[in-house]
Structure formats: C-alpha cells, structure tokens
C-alpha cells in the first residue's frame, strides 16, 4: 500500500483530462494535441496548487492511454545534480526509442524556475539535441524565472490562481467522497486562506477534519496558522523592530532546518512586504533590496547572504 491514499490531495487528484473541471481552455488545447498524436514542448506557469502537475500527468495518461510507465518521467529540476541527471535520463530515452504508438517520451520537470541560468542554458541544448525523441513539460511558478530561449521553444500555458467558485467545487467534491460534513462558515474560511491554491485548500480541510470528519470554523482557524507558516512574517517584524540578529537566526532556520527554497522564501516575503505596515519610502528601498537579492540568487549567489541584506534594509531607518 502506498502513502498516497492517506493524503486527500493525492487521493483525489484528477487522473484524466476529462476529470479536470476548472481549466477548460487548457484542457481543450491539450486534447487537441492528443487528437493529432503530437505534443510540443510546453511550459506550465502558475503559482502552487493551480493544477500544473495534474494537467501534465493527465495529459501523459490520456496520451499513452493509461500505459504510460516507462514513457514518461518526473524530475525535480532544482536538484543540484539536476542538469546532469536530466542529461542522463534524456540520453537513455534517446537510446531506447519507444517501440509502438507515440514516437516520443515525456519528461516533466518540476520547479524548473529554481534552476540557475547556467543549468537552464544546458537544458536548452538538451532540449534541442533530443527534440526528436523527447518532449519537455516544464512546470514553473514564474514565467520570468525561465530564460527567454527556452520560453520561445515552448507552448506556454498559464495557470492563474483558481477562482473561489472553483476552489469551492473542488473542496465539496473531496469532502463528499470522504463523507465529511462542513459548515458554510468553515468553507468560507478555507477559501479565504487558500488564496486560489487548491492544494492548500484540500490540505487545510484534511488537517482540520480530524477523527470526526467535521469541519467547523474553529477547527479551520486552528490549522491555518500552522500550515501557512507565520515565520516569514515574524522574521520581517523582527527586522522592522531593529532586531536584526533574531531575524537572521530565523532566516537560517527557514533555510536550513526547514529547508525551504530561497524562491519560496523570497516569494512569501514579497507578498508580505506589500501588506506589512511601514513608511512608503522605506518600502521602496526594501522592495528594491528584495529585487536585487532575487536576481543574485538566480545567478547562483548565496541565499542567506542575499536575503540578509533585505533584513538589514528592513532594520534601517531611511529617514535620517
């Protein structure tokens, strides 16, 4: 038995394109590829929990009519051995042409905007060299995280945050199948906290359901804070208060103990920095520092050093 049926998000993940109810346009384009039996290289762009992986897996399933094993592979692009692993895998693909049916295999590269620019250049060459035997589906949070030459070789599909209606539908579908009960208030809280992220919505629902499988507003509010770590906001507040040392300690914890990616921390900081209370002139300075940090990290600089400068900017009184 696998662990997947213990987690609702995976247990109820749509397996075919037909089961995907909230991405009509994407689904119809993907279906037309299947009809002609060929797919281009693709780039799926959107924030977490918007169905990128689901769409990619469903496409693979429909394309190979269920017998997809050996014909596709999922890899995490941000592995530091990533680019070499990818090269090896693709080489193996090239060596063993699929005998029947579709004449190519599919490689799904998750988190590809976490790759450094250099790795992406290497990826681009691999994509060109093995174009005849492999199609790539790149999944990314940001389109600009992917270098231009790769973007231009891909059909780009956008996955914006899901609408409250779609989140609601998705949630109810899962809750019914689980035989859980819920109050309308509870549902509203989940939708609000999920910010268009279906994975988050379902995760919140599962952690709040407990043994009784009953969702109340209270049980939702209890888990939201835990699942959506407040630590980044706390780090920002510490820095704002001038306590740089504590903020830096917290940064080290997030990066190393929790092992969060620099991208995730930077994205979360970006969101928080827009809403947190501070002088507008200072906000410009801080956001500028964040931009520099973001850029340098993408060029391979050290995340802890770079993000520390943002914390220092937060701790600075720019009026004097």
């Amino acid at each position, binding site marked *: *038995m*696998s*662990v*997947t049926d*213990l*987690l609702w*998000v*995976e247990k109820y*993940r749509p397996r075919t394109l037909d089961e995907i109810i909230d991405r009509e346009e994407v689904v119809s384009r993907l279906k037309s590829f299947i009809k002609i039996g060929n797919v281009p290289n693709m780039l799926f762009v959107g924030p*977490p*929990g918007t169905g990128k*992986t689901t769409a990619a897996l469903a496409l693979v399933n429909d394309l190979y009519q269920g017998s997809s094993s050996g014909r596709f592979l*999922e890899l*995490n*692009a*941000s*592995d530091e051995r990533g680019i070499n692993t990818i090269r090896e895998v693709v080489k193996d693909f090239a060596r063993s042409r699929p005998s029947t049916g579709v004449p190519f295999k599919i490689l799904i590269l*998750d*988190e590809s905007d*976490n790759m450094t620019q250099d790795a992406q250049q290497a990826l681009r060459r691999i994509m060109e060299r093995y174009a005849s035997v492999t199609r790539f589906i790149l*999944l990314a949070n940001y389109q600009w995280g992917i270098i231009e030459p790769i973007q231009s070789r891909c059909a780009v599909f956008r996955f914006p945050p899901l609408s409250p209606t779609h989140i609601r539908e998705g949630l109810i579908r899962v809750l019914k199948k689980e035989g859980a009960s819920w109050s309308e208030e509870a549902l509203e809280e989940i939708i609000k906290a999920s910010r268009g992220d279906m*994975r*988050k919505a379902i*995760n919140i629902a*599962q*952690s709040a359901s*407990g*043994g009784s499988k009953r969702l109340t507003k209270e049980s939702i509010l209890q*888990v939201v804070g*835990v*699942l959506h770590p407040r630590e980044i906001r706390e780090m920002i507040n510490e820095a704002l208060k*001038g306590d*740089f*040392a504590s903020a*830096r300690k917290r940064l080290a914890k997030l990066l*190393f103990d*929790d*092992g*969060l*990616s620099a*991208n*995730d921390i930077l994205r979360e900081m970006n969101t928080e920095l827009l809403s947190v209370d501070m002088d507008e002139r200072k906000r410009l300075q801080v956001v500028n520092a964040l931009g*520099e*940090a973001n850029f*340098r990290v993408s*060029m*391979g*600089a*050290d995340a*802890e*050093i*770079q993000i*520390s*400068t943002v914390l*220092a*900017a937060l*701790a*600075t*009184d720019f009026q*004097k």
Partner: protein
Amino acid sequence: MSGSKLSWVEKYKPKTLDEIVGNDAAKKDFLDWLQKWDERGKAALLHGPPGVGKTILVEVAASTLGYRLIETNASDTRREDYLENVIKPAAFNRSLFSSRLMIFFDEVDGISREDSGALNFILELIESSRVPIVMAANDPWSQNLYRIRDRVYMIQMHRVRAQSMVKRLRDICRNEGVKCKQEVLMLIAERSEGDMRAAIEDLELLYSSHEEAGLEEAERILSYRNVEQNIFETLRMVTFASNLEKASTSLSSAEERPEDMLEWVFENIPHVSPRQSLYQSLRYVAEADALFKQISKNSVWRILPCFYHKLASAFLVIPQKSRVSFSFPNRMRERFKRFQHEKNLRELESFFTKELHVGRSAFRRDFIPLLRVLSKNEDFRSSLLNRLVDQRLKELYSSLILGEARKRFS
C-alpha cells in the same frame, strides 16, 4: 605513570594499516605498488592535505612489509653531506645496511625551487635507485615539483570524513576513560577539516583540562586554540583601516581563502556595523558574494581584487566603529551539520516527492507542515509509518517529521 605523558597523537599513532582512519583506496593502492615494486618501479608520491595520514601510511606500510625506513624531511635535504653520505649509500644498498630499505622524502613540496641541488639529487635517485623511493607532499601541483611529478606514481589521499574521525575519537575517549558527547566529537571532527592529527590534538586539549566539556565550552576553547590569531588580527585591521587600500590589502594578504574570508566578514559585519549603516555594509558583502561566484565560475581571478575592495568597503562605510570582539563564522561551524540535515531531508523526500508528484520545495513548503499536523493523530501516524516499508525511511520520518530523538549523526 611515567609513560602517560605521551601526547595522544603519539600514544594513538596507528600501528597497523587498519588503524589508519579513512583513505582505504589509497592504502590499498600504495600497498599494491610497494608489493609489486622492482627496480624499474621507481618512485611513488603520496599527496593530500596535512594530517590525512601520508607519513603514517608510509611508516606502517614499511614495517608491515618488513622494510627499514630512511626518513628525510625538507630540512635534511638541504644538507648535501647527508644526501651523499646517508641517502646515496642507502639507495644503492651498499652493505652499510643489512635489511631491505625504503627511502622516504617527506614534505617534498617544502624543498624550495632555488634548492635545485636537492631536487636534481632526488630526480637522479628516482632513475637509478635500487630501493623504493616514496615521497609525500601537500600540494603536488606546486611549481617546484613539476619535473618530479611525471616521473612518479601518484597516489592521492583525501581529507578524512568527519564520521570516520568521530569513530576513532570515540575509541580514544573510551580508552582514556573520558566522557565525551557525540556533538562535541562532531564539532572537533568538523573543525579539523579532515586533519586527523589536528582532531586528536583538539580532543586532548579539551579533555586533559575539562573532564566533561559540553558543546558550548568546546566551541569556546577550540575557537581560541584552532583559529589562527591571524584572522582576528586581519579583521581588526580592516575595521579600523583609514582607507580602501589599507583595508583591501589586509584582506587579500590574509591566509584565508577568499570564500572563507567572505564567511568571516558576513559573520562579523553585524557586530561591527551599527544599525544605521548595516544595510550599506551588507550590500557590499552581498555584491562581493555574487562577484565571487562569477569569478570562480568563469575563472577570472584577475578581478579578485574587486572582490576584496567590496569586502573592504563593507567596513569603510561604517561611520563610527566601536571596539568589538569577533566571532567564528557560525555557518562554517555548522557546515557539516547542515549538510547532514539536508542529506537526510533529501533521502526522505525522494520517497514522498515521487509518491505525491510534487517538487522538492513544494514538499517542504506544503507537505512537511501537513504531515506534522496529521501525524498528531495516532491512527494517521501508525498507518503512515506502516506504509514506509524501509526501516531507514521510518527513522527519517520519526526524526524529521515527528521530531523524535534526533539521530542525525548516528
């Protein structure tokens, strides 16, 4: 009691090959070479960082195979009479000695390039010797060895892994009857950077005076002992330098590698720079970091001075400097611990990311907190653990997700 004054390094000097920690491949390689040696076999060069066991390997291998060792070091080779009267006869095994001989030149990279006499002597010896010649060097790529390099059989020895070291250190502790905590041994091993000898020296320093030193105490004591005074002096000079040239020169002429210097500056800038200038200071550090990555990636070392200028600027923008005490970079100290932790996380998540079709960062961001919450439920916890068939996975899950007794270093 009389014999107990031996230093631990001496006392626990390996007597058999098995007792030499690490470098199994190199040990085997060297022994093979020696066993197959004949007069055409010429010479071997063992190279690797200090303290990894080059000298001891030669000594133990010699005694294991029944060779009598004639040892020389860099200062001996300067004495021409010694070379002529001791080494030469030995190389041709002229009756002076009865047993089988082996000649060992330790620290050959320490022979200065100007001392062409000694180098020529060794070169000639390599060609004509009738007994095995073995050399050891830290840096085999040093300029003065280039003629020797392609005439010898090179064997590389690596830094000893911290885990292997810990095992040896623990044995010593047991033998000495001292109680030493695992994390202290880890600290010692980590700080030694693969130098077994330095690690044993540190261990003795710590426990000859402190019966049961804890982690904090160990850090305090070892930071005074191990870290070269040099670097603190450098930081002080840079902090109070009056202009860019002075500050930059102090940084670039220190013995630290540039990337380590970056660590020292990053650690200490917040101590030196008050809140008002901290952002400016750290920006320079961040620029230096980004620049260094480019320099080393593209091998444009000629712009390394710019790197030092940026680091120096981090100090120069500070309006008022107060006297401070500098500290050892936390990131350097924790390098190994972080590495281990990251390795464990990856091992655990390589299972989950495949099962759940999520990327690594998504797993850490969204699923670790989820699994923590859900695992508070007894039923969920036990059914999840049941599905982790692998014992190792179960352990990792328990320590990383459930936060049970951390077994990071076992």
